[in-house]
């Protein structure tokens, strides 16, 4: 069957891209039929998706336990807030600035601790996140506004007449950034860097002996993850128009950790599903009022019981050894 590929057409719902087209269709139609409240719910879904993707690089791709990711998020948000309120620099110009600030912070903080393993790295990142939060509360150099935070952040703009100031525009801003990140991350997953990361996750010692610079690639993961979290912080700050330390607690880091694990480590669609679960669940279960967090905890346990690998686990790519063996056997026979 020489032409089997072209002849084998299963209709629209069987084709490879149909799911993607349906998802994109819903994405574009949704903001025009939903109320402002539900567009905002979708906006925060987007923020959590971006945060999940950023932690996914560190936790999912390289397997480093990072429970202080809210620290990077906070650095991004406060960089935007301070530079915007003190110097009036437009928010959209500050997106790369926030990303660089968070990345630089990650580089400086993580360089001395990158050799730590497993849970020791985990507690150091927790400590890092807490130090950032407490420092913000204590208002160093009168910059961060203490427990009240920074107020009066502008709507996102480039300084010109184009200003993002409605829920629908925010929705497209965040999901546009998420979309771009997804494209970039898929490219990264299939690159030399992505393969090096996965190799380190599977076996650090073996990766080192195969010539992978383990230290460099681990740091790179932290830096890229922090940069993405910084971007999320930027958009979050401009949406809320104020930032305060209580948005960046240990709890927030735990939520990001759960997003990655509930979705599936290293799986990009999984992380989006995880973010959806974390951000939409409390909305859907609003009628339960004070019992909804009870339900939330129970569902988290049940999900790990029935789908321990996550909702959409990552498929192992590359050449599988068994298939290679069978092919060789076929050749011999």
């Amino acid at each position: 069957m020489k032409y089997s590929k072209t002849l084998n057409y299963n209709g629209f719902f069987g084709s490879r891209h149909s799911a993607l087209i349906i998802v994109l269709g819903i994405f574009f139609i949704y903001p025009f039929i939903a109320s402002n409240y539900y567009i905002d719910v979708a906006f925060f879904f987007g923020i959590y998706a971006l945060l999940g993707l950023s932690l996914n690089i560190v936790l999912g791709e390289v397997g480093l336990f990072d429970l202080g990711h809210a620290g990077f998020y906070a650095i991004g948000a406060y960089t935007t807030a301070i530079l915007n309120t003190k110097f009036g620099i437009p928010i959209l110009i500050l997106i790369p600035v926030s990303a660089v600030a968070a990345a630089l912070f990650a580089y400086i903080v993580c360089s001395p601790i990158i050799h730590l393993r497993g849970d020791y790295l985990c507690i150091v990142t927790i400590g890092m996140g807490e130090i950032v939060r407490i420092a913000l509360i204590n208002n160093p150099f009168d910059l961060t506004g203490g427990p009240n935070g920074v107020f009066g952040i502008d709507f996102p703009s480039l300084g010109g007449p184009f200003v993002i100031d409605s829920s629908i525009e925010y929705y497209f801003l965040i999901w546009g950034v998420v979309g771009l990140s997804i494209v970039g991350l898929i490219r990264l997953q299939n690159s030399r860097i992505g393969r090096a990361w996965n190799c380190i996750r599977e076996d650090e010692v073996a990766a080192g002996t195969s010539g992978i610079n383990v230290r460099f690639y681990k740091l790179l993961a932290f830096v890229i993850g922090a940069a993405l979290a910084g971007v999320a912080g930027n958009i979050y700050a401009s949406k809320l128009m104020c930032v305060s330390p209580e948005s960046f607690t240990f709890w927030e880091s735990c939520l990001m950790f759960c997003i990655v694990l509930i979705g599936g480590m290293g799986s990009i669609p999984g992380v989006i599903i995880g973010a959806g679960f974390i951000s939409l669940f409390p909305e859907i279960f609003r009628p339960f009022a004070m019992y909804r967090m009870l339900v939330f905890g129970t569902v988290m346990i049940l999900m790990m019981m029935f789908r321990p690998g996550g909702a959409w686990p990552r498929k192992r790519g590359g050449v599988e050894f068994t298939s290679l063996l069978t092919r060789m056997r076929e050749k011999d026979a």
Partner: protein
Amino acid sequence: MEVFLEQLINGLTIGSFYALIALGYSMVYGILKLINFAHGDFFALGSYIGYTVLVFGSAFITSHFGLWGGMIAAMLVAAFCVAFVGVVVERAAYRPIYPAGRLPAVVSALGASIFIQNTIMVIWGPRYQAYPASLIPNIHIQLGNIHITLLQIVILVLSFFLLGILYWVIQKTTFGAAIRATALDKDTASLMGINFNRVIFFIFTLGPALGAMTGVMVGMYYRQISFTMGWNYGLKAFTATILGGIGNLPGAMFGGLILGVLEMFGAAYISAAWKDVFVFLILILVLIFRPTGLFGEKVAEKV
């Protein structure tokens, strides 16, 4: 000098709280390699149960046992109840997930933590609760220029007594040997006739029970409890566990004491607002130079 001694006593008091909670973390971590996020909430639950016992049994307790008796009664009731909860949580939330590996268990532990925390909120309400002042012994003592309360001394003695018992159980008894053996190598230990399930049952009664007793002591010491307090103490106790070397039980005790003393000295000599930063900075510095904690043994990398 007075400030130094007072802060040392304060630090040892708080440190012994951290040490008692850290033991629960360390035991579970040693056996299951699981960061039991729900442990801090066992502590909070214990505090609330002790509060209920004191409030609703106040007339009975003061007439039959006296103030100190009431304290002990509250601690024992809390310990029994929370030990039961600990076993139930282990059966329901952790046991089905062991085969799936470490990370799913962490999420499950977080789920259990959210569940317990919100159960407390649903039962006792979201506001702060105050331990009844009339039911807490309140005697001041002056030694030279140092002011301390009798309660503080009792708490200190009691926690060191509990730490001592735990040290003895873990280091000297057969059961402690079983725990340590299981922590070293689960499979070999069960081949040597150690009942793995009994070890798990034991650590999930002992750890939460200790946490609950600490909860009652913290309630008496600070008078004020809230349903989210488990997170703060849990985080500090987990820090203490790592500081001492994870899975190393005497290390967890010393880690807790060191952490408490450091925190109090940081608050007294540097700045109260920055004390937690100080604690975490010390932790990070210790881990940079001793990556497996103060008392942790160097673990050879398996290839």
